[in-house]
């Protein structure tokens, strides 16, 4: 089954097509929400931000030049909104659920069981990365962005994208080591 391309939807949105906006929102909002949530770590804030992101898409669709994929363009807007939000609220408290996912240092019985699961350990370490490292890991692994696309979203040279990803992975190994898992790399 063939779906309308994002580029075509953007063209329609530029003409004020509300239905096209609904289709584009339905197609991308979950991934954008997850990207933003991983940065701001607050579900309510992330929900507010994706409304703002897609409102910008609605307003700016006529200026979209198609030099990047639509999803890359949207993630770039999302990143800008998320970082702006973090600058406005530097001491923002984590919501309970997100905090629950993040704090996992204590060796309570549940944690002890979880530590037996290498996958769970890796996921835990992923939540402990800095925002800079977390976003690049997510963009590459979850959002499947190329080196060039990540460079466009984050606003850094392609060579820096590669080295930042390398150091994010290295940090991940260090965090795992702290949790008692030696991956033998780097």
């Amino acid at each position, binding site marked *: *089954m*063939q*779906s*309308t*391309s994002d580029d*075509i*939807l953007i*063209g*329609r949105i530029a*003409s*004020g097509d*509300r*239905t*096209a*906006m*609904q*289709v584009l*929102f339905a197609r991308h*909002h*979950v991934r954008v*929400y*997850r990207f933003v*949530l*991983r940065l701001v770590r607050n*579900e309510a804030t*992330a*929900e*507010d931000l*994706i*409304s703002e992101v*897609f*409102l910008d898409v*609605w*307003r700016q669709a006529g200026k979209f030049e198609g030099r990047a994929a639509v999803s890359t363009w949207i993630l770039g807007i999302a990143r800008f909104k998320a970082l702006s939000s973090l600058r406005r609220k530097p001491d923002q408290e984590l919501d309970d659920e997100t905090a629950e*996912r993040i704090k996992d240092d204590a060796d309570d019985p549940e944690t002890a069981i979880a530590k037996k699961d*290498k*996958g769970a350990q*890796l*996921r835990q370490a*992923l*939540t402990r990365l800095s925002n800079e490292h977390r976003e690049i*890991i*997510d963009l*590459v*692994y*979850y959002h*499947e*962005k*190329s*080196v060039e*696309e990540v460079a466009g979203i984050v606003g850094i040279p392609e060579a820096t994208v*590669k*080295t930042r*990803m*390398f150091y994010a*992975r290295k940090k*991940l190994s260090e965090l795992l080591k702290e949790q008692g898992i030696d*991956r*033998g*790399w780097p």
Partner: protein
Amino acid sequence: MSTTDKSQGDIEELLPWHATGTLGRRDAQRVEDALQRDPDLARRYALVRDELGETIALNESLGAPSSRAMDNLFARIDAEPARAARSPGFGVRFSEFVSSLSPRTLALAGGAAAIAILLQAGIIAGVVLKERSAGGYVTASRTVADTNAGAFVLIRFAPQATQDEVTKFLEADKMTIVAGPTSGGLYKVKISPTPLPQAELGAIVKRLQDNKVVGFIASTQ
């Protein structure tokens, strides 16, 4: 650092993108060759694949936003000043039409795909032209008075459907294309000159969706 070390470092940095399949062909081949000859690199690549799997799992566990986000967005959009509607030109419509008939992968598949696209365009255009010449079907860009009354479905024809098959499919149930292609390559098809009860419409949709020429079907107003 020797040239070999530098090259190995470059390859190592590319492993995450190799795992997600987002490298260009040349770089992908370089990484693949290096993995074949370097067991230690292959072991480190396995670590990358673990990271990839767990990053996906972590993100998928984050759930989805509530409907509040969408409600809020469209309330704000509705509050925006109305835009002057622009009717897309023939080129855009044709582009959308061809795009709607073939999967994106076909577009990337080269000559064979191009032939498939043209054949498909010809098939649907042929059906529409044939029906128009017979005074029957009305195409996408046209509306007629009687298109507002009746029972309708949205249909996307299967990519492999032939012109004859589509024609026979429409004729078998006395169906008429009244609009299309809309977004996603959908055609609005009248299946009855009078409105039908929801249950009856649902039963017809269910029967039609088993036909091999139908890629997608849903009732509509």
